[in-house]
């Protein structure tokens, strides 16, 4: 049984188990080594008193605060836009759709899920070009447009996680609801939706993570390096991910470079925390249905 092919395979498996963690540790270790010491209120506010900065009374020029606030607003707006269509569509596909609808719409959602994010950005860009040529010659890129495109990006995350969560509610429970005379919609909204809530919220957290880290979409839809705190929905804005990209290409001095490292570490930590939160929620959900065994 022990032929050369198998031995090579075994060696490759062991090698990869050393190589991959080593490479990731070197990459992220280097990042943390440079970035962690910079983290602090000075990185965020650059000496401006935090209260003044947060309330917008004093503009912050050399800190990450405007970018953080921009990303925060962007993510909030994105989730607000995507939540209803995403969760509703997931519920529909899980509970009301015919097999044919499931097949067709499921394929569309799969396609959207794999779509490169830059295509969503391009879509937003085209939308503005289209509006300029037709109804609104003054249309321009801004926060709302970016959030709409990001909403399209995170839509499949929400749809898929909602659908899976609702479908994992035991069939027998749905049957019991039917035997009581509850209609499908009632069962979906009153029984499955509350029961699947932890799973769905896991999906929402994942969606927040996707929206916060993405750079390609906002590149097309109105992000700039020095907008300050965006005033309105149609204004240009700053974002953390773009700030990192911008600094890597355009940094002027060591201080700005360190700010880039700080921003990268900050975004990394936020993403990891979001992922962990999503996993905790999802695990709690699965324990609820499968833990009894």
């Amino acid at each position, binding site marked *: 049984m022990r032929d050369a092919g198998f031995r090579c395979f075994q060696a490759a498996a062991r090698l990869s188990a050393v190589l991959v963690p080593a490479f990731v540790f070197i990459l992220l270790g280097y990042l943390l080594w440079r970035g962690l010491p910079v983290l602090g209120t000075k990185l965020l506010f650059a000496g401006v008193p935090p209260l003044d900065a947060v309330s917008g009374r004093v503009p912050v020029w050399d800190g990450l605060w405007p970018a953080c606030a921009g990303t925060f607003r962007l993510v909030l707006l994105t989730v607000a836009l995507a939540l209803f269509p995403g969760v509703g569509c997931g519920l529909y596909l899980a509970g009301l759709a015919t*097999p044919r609808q499931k097949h067709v719409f499921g394929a569309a959602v799969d396609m959207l899920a794999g779509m490169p994010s830059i295509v969503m950005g391009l879509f937003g860009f085209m939308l503005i070009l289209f509006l300029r040529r037709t109804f609104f010659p003054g249309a321009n890129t801004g926060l709302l447009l970016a959030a709409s495109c990001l909403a399209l990006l995170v839509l499949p995350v929400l749809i898929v996680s909602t659908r899976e969560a609702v479908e994992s509610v035991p069939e*027998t*429970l*749905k*049957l*019991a*609801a*039917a*035997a*009581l*005379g*509850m*209609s499908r919609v*009632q069962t979906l909204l*009153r*029984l499955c939706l*509350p*029961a699947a809530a932890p799973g769905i919220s896991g999906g929402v957290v994942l969606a927040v993570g996707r929206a916060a880290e993405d750079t390609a979409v906002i590149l097309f839809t109105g992000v700039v390096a020095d907008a300050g705190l965006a005033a309105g929905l149609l204004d240009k804005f700053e974002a953390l991910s773009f700030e990192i990209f911008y600094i890597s290409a355009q940094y002027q001095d060591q201080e700005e470079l360190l700010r880039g490292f700080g921003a990268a570490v900050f975004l990394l930590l936020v993403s990891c925390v979001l992922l962990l939160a999503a996993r905790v929620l999802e695990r709690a959900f699965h324990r*609820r249905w499968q833990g009894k065994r």
Partner: protein
Amino acid sequence: MEQMPAVAVRRLSVSFFGRAVIRDVELSLPGGGISVLVGRSGCGKTTLLRALNRLNGEFPGCRTTGQVELFLRGGRHVVYPGGDQPPLELRELRRRVGMVFQTPQVFPTSVYRNMALPLQTVADCPGTELDGRIEAALRQVDLWREVHDRLQTPAERLSGGQQQRLCLARALTLEPELLLLDEPTASLDVHAARHVEELLLRLVEHYPIVMVSHSLSQSLRLASTLLIMGTGGTSPRACTPEGLDERTLEALLQETKEDAPCVTR
């Protein structure tokens, strides 16, 4: 005992994806007492039971032909042939025909919500009457004393027997006129099962009951009418339990074994 039937079934056949589970069943059930369906597993007892509240339609690929009529307090109701009945009718049918499953199907919410949910969504019960009806139903199944001080705890924390009685109470809040029970004690321990049996003997004063049972001794204890189903989903044979013991019943079950292949689902 009343002679008026509660259920009349004529030439009922149910198939899933073209595979017949029960065929040409003729059946008439009395309007009082407990009718117990016995038979080997896979002979179509559950499918027959579920035909009475059209629950088979919840599964894909189901086709039902023949007639099912219920004679309830409100008069005669045609269950089949149904065609595409509007959902309100289906809802009304299921409200009037309560059902309890083999394993307790409590919803993953509080005890109170378990009771309130069907009342609100199916019976359109006004909020002011909610508490009273919930208490009444819980008292009917001897559960009120045990849970009245923890109505807001998750229903899953109750013991198996309590959960099953909760499911029974949940069906009873809707004021059904017929109860369908699918092996209601199969997943319970002896003690809890006895408790449910006692309840059923009390409830039968108010509701006609049709139940499926795997336990021959239980069937003999509870049944006012025994329905012995043969393999292959053919019409069950009705007989009275008087003078039967477990051994003769077992022999009767053996007798009904026909050449028809056993259909399992």
